[in-house]
């Protein structure tokens, strides 16, 4: 509820639409309310007195009021929709922009799946709730209050009936709304369980089959399915009673109205037409209440969505460009880590512990180590995807936090472990690396990344369109494009996260050679699992449990690092007796 209120600032620019929508609705409601009164007059004044002209006059008024009502409702549809859709669009803009500014740590706290759901479904849900509120929800109270007022003004004699009926109706409806909100939340939880189970068995169908667990999964599904049915049933049980109960209350009120009316007609206080008008107003009141209840139920369901949206908007972005960055003409690529600690969770284990090393500009640094030793994390600290918990990372002797983010990142070429390409042409993907890229530059980068050959076999070469997730390329091809994209910016710092693993030995060797020959001044960090990939590096860091176990050239490490020797032994099959 609070979150929804917070989101209301987004309606401010469209406040006139948001006011006009309900205002126009007032016109329709007013006209709807006038109808029974006019009818009453037709009967009581026109027909009873045999006044021909009066009947025709009022008939004409009724039609005019119907037209006005129609225009009002249409106006309301136009403006309410406008306000709600524009409101949703603006929120979407801001939320998307915010997610773009997120640091990787911010991103991790939400998770990719949840963020996507927020930007797509949750915003639409809130937008629809706003539209419903402006267009339908206000109708209910208007009709409700309007009817009561009119009954008070024109059929005061029958008003006591309302005094009894309205409180009963209101209590019923409030109770039902609250109750059904609670019950449907439980239904939703059960539904989520069914969906999770389903999604998992579909994604893991091979495992299910390999382990012959079909029956097991069926019985698992039965449990969640039965739970869903049970909860649905207890929720529906309540919901289905609402309609008959309100109908009953209103109908009994009609009987009461007729009884009270008959007495007063008997006494000559009122006329028959008033009873008929009263019955009509009761119907209007009921409809107003019912539609209000149903819309309210839906609006209640948008609260959690609003909460999630606000969560995104209120997230404190933990990595931002400094206010006054140290002016640097060009980043040369000298990198130093000083006692860097890093942990993904606040009280979790440290992934990097007191890490220090120094890389001179233009050096080629190899990083090797076991699974989970912190290689990728180390690399991600350089473009400031994450900030260290303590210690400093310096580039060209200046703390990373004092570099402008833009300047820093534009000096870095990064090739992630998993090649992420975007839908669009190969050229568009290359433009990620460098904006105004020429054909010859593209060709050159592709050549260096051993990608040129396969690109030329594709339809339209650089205009070949990739599908979402680049599913129309093989893993090795994606990786080569990802490398080419990094190389095309001629970066001063190049970070390769085990990115040559999907390449065959020959292509890998070619890429390695290209790095050495074409990028002599670029500082290169190369994570590898194979010693052969990093054997020629100026410096190799051996990572173990988040610490540097040893560093040095290949030959030095063979002498001083037992971990490195072990890796070498497992990969070459040679015992290194001569060093021991």
């Amino acid at each position: 509820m609070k979150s929804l209120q917070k989101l209301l600032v987004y309606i401010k620019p469209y406040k006139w639409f948001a006011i006009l929508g309900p205002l126009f609705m007032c016109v329709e409601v007013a006209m709807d309310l006038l109808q029974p009164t006019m009818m009453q007059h037709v009967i009581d004044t026109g027909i009873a007195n045999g006044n021909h002209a009066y009947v025709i006059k009022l008939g004409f008024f009724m039609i005019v009021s119907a037209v006005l009502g129609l225009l009002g409702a249409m106006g309301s549809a136009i403006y309410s929709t406008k306000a709600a859709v524009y409101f949703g669009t603006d929120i979407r803009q801001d939320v998307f922009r915010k997610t773009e500014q997120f640091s990787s740590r911010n991103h991790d706290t939400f998770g990719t799946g949840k963020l996507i759901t927020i930007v797509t479904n949750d915003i639409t849900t809130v937008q629809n709730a706003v539209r419903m509120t402006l267009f339908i929800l206000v109708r209910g109270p208007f009709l409700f209050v309007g009817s009561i007022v009119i009954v008070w003004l024109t059929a005061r004699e029958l008003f006591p009936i309302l005094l009894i009926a309205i409180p009963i109706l209101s209590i019923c409806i409030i109770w039902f709304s609250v109750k059904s909100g609670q019950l449907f939340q439980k239904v939703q939880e059960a539904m989520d369980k069914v969906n999770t189970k389903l999604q998992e068995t579909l994604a893991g169908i091979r495992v299910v089959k390999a382990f012959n667990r079909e029956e097991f999964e069926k019985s698992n599904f039965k449990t969640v399915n039965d739970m869903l049915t049970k909860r649905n049933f207890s929720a529906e049980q309540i919901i289905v009673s609402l309609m008959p109960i309100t109908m009953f209350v209103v109908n009994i009120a009609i009987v009461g109205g007729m009884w009270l009316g008959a007495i007063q007609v008997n006494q000559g206080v009122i006329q028959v037409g008033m009873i008929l008008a009263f019955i009509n107003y009761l119907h209007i009141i009921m409809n107003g209440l019912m539609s209000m209840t149903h819309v309210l139920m839906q609006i209640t369901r948008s609260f959690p969505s609003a909460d999630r949206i606000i969560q995104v908007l209120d997230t404190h972005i933990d990595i931002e460009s400094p206010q006054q960055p140290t002016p640097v003409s060009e980043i040369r690529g000298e990198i130093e880590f000083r006692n860097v600690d890093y942990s993904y969770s606040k009280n979790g284990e440290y992934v990097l512990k007191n890490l220090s090393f120094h890389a001179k500009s233009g050096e080629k640094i190899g990083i090797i180590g076991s699974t989970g030793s912190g290689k990728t994390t180390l690399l991600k600290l350089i473009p400031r995807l994450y900030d260290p918990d303590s210690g400093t990372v310096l580039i060209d002797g200046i703390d990373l936090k004092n570099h402008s983010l833009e300047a820093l990142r534009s000096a870095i070429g990064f090739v992630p472990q998993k090649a992420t390409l975007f839908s669009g042409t190969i050229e568009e993907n290359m433009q990620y690396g460098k904006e105004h890229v020429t054909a010859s530059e593209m060709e050159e980068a592709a050549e260096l990344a051993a990608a040129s050959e396969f690109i030329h076999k594709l339809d339209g070469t650089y205009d070949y369109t990739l599908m979402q997730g680049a599913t129309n390329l093989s893993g090795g091809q994606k990786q080569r494009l990802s490398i080419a994209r990094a190389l095309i910016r001629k970066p001063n710092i190049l970070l390769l996260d085990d990115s040559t693993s999907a390449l065959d030995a020959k292509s890998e060797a070619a890429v390695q050679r290209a790095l050495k020959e074409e990028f002599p001044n670029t500082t290169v960090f190369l994570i590898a699992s194979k010693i052969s990939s990093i054997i020629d590096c100026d410096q190799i860091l051996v990572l173990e449990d988040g610490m540097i176990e040893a560093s040095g050239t290949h030959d030095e490490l063979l002498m001083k690092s037992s971990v490195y020797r072990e890796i070498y032994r497992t990969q070459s099959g040679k015992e290194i007796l001569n060093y021991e």
Partner: protein
Amino acid sequence: MNKASSSGAENAVARARGPRGFGGPVEKAKDKKGTMLRIWRYMKKEKWSLVVSIVFVILSTLLSLCAPYLIGIIVDEYIIPKDMSGTVRMLILLAGIYTASAVFTWLQTFLMVNVSLKTIRVMRQDLFNKFQTLSLRFFDKRAHGELMSRVTNDIDNLNQALSQSVSQIVSTILMASGVIIAMFSLNWVLAIVTLLIIPLMIYTTKKVITYSSSNFIKRQRDLGELNGFIEESISGIEVITLFGKEEQVFTKFSSINHRLRHSARAADTVSGFLGPINNFISTLGLALVIGIGALMTLQGLATVGIIAAFVTYSRQFYRPINQLSNVLNMFQSAIAGAERVFEIMDEKPDLQDKPNALMASSFKGDVEFKQVDFRYSEDKQILKGITFSAKAGETIALVGPTGSGKTTVINLLSRFYDIDSGEIMIDGRNIKDYQMSALRKRIGIVLQDTFLFSGTIMENIRYGRLKATDQEVIEAAKMASAHSFIKHLPEQYDTPITSGGSNLSQGQKQLLAIARAILADSDILILDEATSSIDTRTEIEIQKGLHYLTKGRTSFVIAHRLKTIENADRILVIKDGTIIESGSHMELMGQRGFYYELYDSQFNI
């Protein structure tokens, strides 16, 4: 779910007060009759509830038809003549009718909800069970999201339709015919006037729906594009950040978002018109009835009571007619959804046990492939004439470039797919002679793409053998070298794994998958790149465990690090779907062929 629940609420609104919204173009079923018949077969079990419920619909509809008639009589014959005791008597009758009507309505909806929920539960379970019987070939062809939506959206829509529209259609038809009869018996001129409005109503509804359909399609298209774009950019945000492309991505997003703003406004506005227009037409009808009625009364052709009754009748008449188109639409798309559900239920599992399939309790482990050909789809042959044999207890390694068909060989041995020609034998019998469940039970497999289920670490390892004790699970974890990292997790073996295992590294997941396979304790073992994301040192450590595991069992190992398979009894080199070399490590090195080159390139330090 979202979609279903909102359409439910919208429908509830419509029920309360004319159709206010319009859910988009309606999809039509191909074989409506057949599908309805099948839905009926599901509902049959609840036949009696259904019959009783429909009886109640009829009763409550009849009663609510009586009420206005009675009101007219009360006004004309009792209130106007000022017969007070008569009035009270009649009002008690009216109250009785209303009470009975409410009770019947309640009973009817209660029963109907019950019927539909029970029906839906069985259907959902059946669909899920069907998924379990279908082969991988089926899942290869379809997107998960699409299959998911059958179980969630399609079945939910059917639930809505069953619990609401069946009784609504019955009551509307009954109500309409009842009202028509009552109106004609009261005053035929006014009855005709009331009916005159209906063609107009149907015509405009059709027009508005046609017009808004095109808008809806545009909106749906823009929304789809935007969602796709959001998905892609949020998943790839790291790369966008690294290459500093936030501005450009945002500009593109913004332009799609604004296109959506335009089309969403158009679609929602037009659909918002539908309710008011129908409301207008029915008011017009009402005015017409009153006007003409008044004139007739003046001439003595009608009475005030009759007008009163007509006012109530026309309200009772127009609203359901308005709704009927909505309900019919809902019903139609539910049928179309049900058809999609049945489509899957009709899917013939292309792998089935033979009638007298053998229930093998254990395998010795002799495996033989004879001239096996296989293709996943018509156009591309994956395996050509694969022939080899493995004696019980041997370790066979499969090597070759990506896409050469190594994993396929293994898929075929587990009978995930059936071969096109040739024969696969275990212990001298064709694998088709064995029950599939028995076959897979005796084959333990560690897949390249390790998949873990949500649940604890303990539960995930236990997936290998459901009856294993905690101690056995821990033993298996130790053997797979997983124990050491599990020990360091916050809740050790009880640490929950989020769906898909995103809180573990790829390597850790592989260790768990290995532990799972160790626990399964099968006769034939398959390791498909089981250690690809594990660093070489841990790999060596696991090798010890695996060595113990493979002892005495026929094992198939796929590995891209050739070091790990040097000791295999036989190495099959597969390239482009054929075996090009085979032999022990030493033999193959001696041949100086493809294997030699591959090995050399990896160990050329």
